[in-house]
């Protein structure tokens, strides 16, 4: 049994297909969703989205967004998303460094909230990559 899944960002479609099981980084903790789940609406935090199709697992890094679950359809609207295959650790490290700089340099005129949310995204993305490497 499977359920259609759509993952999209404002600029493009990232994933469209059927899933047997899906794990999303919900704002209040990881969400595991099977087909025929009750209607659910949740915010997402930066982290990893795993779409299980048979034995295959598709991994997408998302930097926050929303998920809507209907028994017969799952829609994930991400602020930005990257498939595991296109993300590059060097770029992730660079982004983390930049975000840390931004947070260190805060002196009133720098938007603290923005810098710390950027840092959270960059750090989550790097954690995820490191975990991937170990496997």
């Amino acid at each position: 049994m499977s359920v259609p899944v759509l993952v999209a960002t404002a600029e493009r479609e990232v994933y469209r297909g059927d899933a047997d099981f899906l794990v999303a980084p919900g704002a209040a903790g990881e969400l595991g969703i099977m087909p025929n789940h009750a209607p659910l609406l949740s915010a997402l935090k930066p982290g990893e989205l795993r779409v299980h199709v048979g034995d295959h697992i598709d991994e997408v890094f998302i930097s926050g967004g929303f998920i809507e679950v209907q028994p017969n359809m799952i829609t994930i609207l991400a602020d930005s998303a990257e498939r595991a295959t296109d993300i590059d650790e060097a770029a992730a490290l660079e982004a983390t460094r930049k975000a840390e700089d931004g947070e260190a340099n805060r002196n009133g005129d720098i938007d603290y909230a923005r810098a710390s949310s950027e840092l959270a995204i960059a750090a989550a993305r790097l954690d995820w990559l490191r975990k991937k490497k170990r496997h």
Partner: protein
Amino acid sequence: MASAKDIRNQIKAVQNTSKITKAMELVAASKMRKAQNRARDAKSYAEGIERIIHNLMQSHPEYAHPFLVERPQVNRVGVIVVSTDKGLCGGLNSNVLRHALGLMREQQVKIDVLTIGRRGAAFMRRFGANSLGSREEISDAPVIGDIIGLTKIAMNHFIDGKLDRIFLVSSEFINTMTQRPKVVQLLPCPEVREPTHSGYWDYLYEPESREVLDGLLTRYVESLVFNAVIENKACEHSARMVAMKSASDNAKDIIKDLRITYNKARQAAITQEIAEICAGSAATS
């Protein structure tokens, strides 16, 4: 009849114009392809979020977000108009603006406008509409940040009760030859006409319904406006390419006509000269 030299100058001028329109046609054609791809790629998100809102309108949330509730008394209406920055794109802007004007005349109450694109802003200024904000010179690769300021103004006015209803007027991209003006009610979210989820139900919310709905509905408004901007870009470049192509074709026709006139004038001059020579030699012999 104009002299041969005048006609030659005229041909030159038309040729120069046609070179420009031809170049603009080529530029528009390449921009058009990119803009159309961008519009197609962005469609998934917009459709996804519209479907979610459609479902949400049929659920029964305990927290009635102001965006979801139709107001009994409408005192002031907001209109967001999406137009282009530059002209020379056929009837695209005038169609949208005429539609916007029609919508504004229909309303029985006072109206505020928000404009995207310089053409729309200039038109509304001339028309004397009260403008709450304007965003001009959006690049060919729009990002959501380009319109967040404007949507923020609109949403704040709506939440504060200064606007009770907001419409979005923009161009819908059908294909390269056809673009159609489109009006949608942005806020409050339009009521569901064809229910797909019946019964009394509500979502599970994580973390809190208030937090999720605030975020999601803000995103929804931004996404609709952003999608209109991206679609408008595709329309703009398509309309410009078509307009420039027909201008180039017209120039070609004019040049052809002028060439014929020029040859006639040249031949008439030669004939006249020969006639004069003949007449002269006949007189002396």
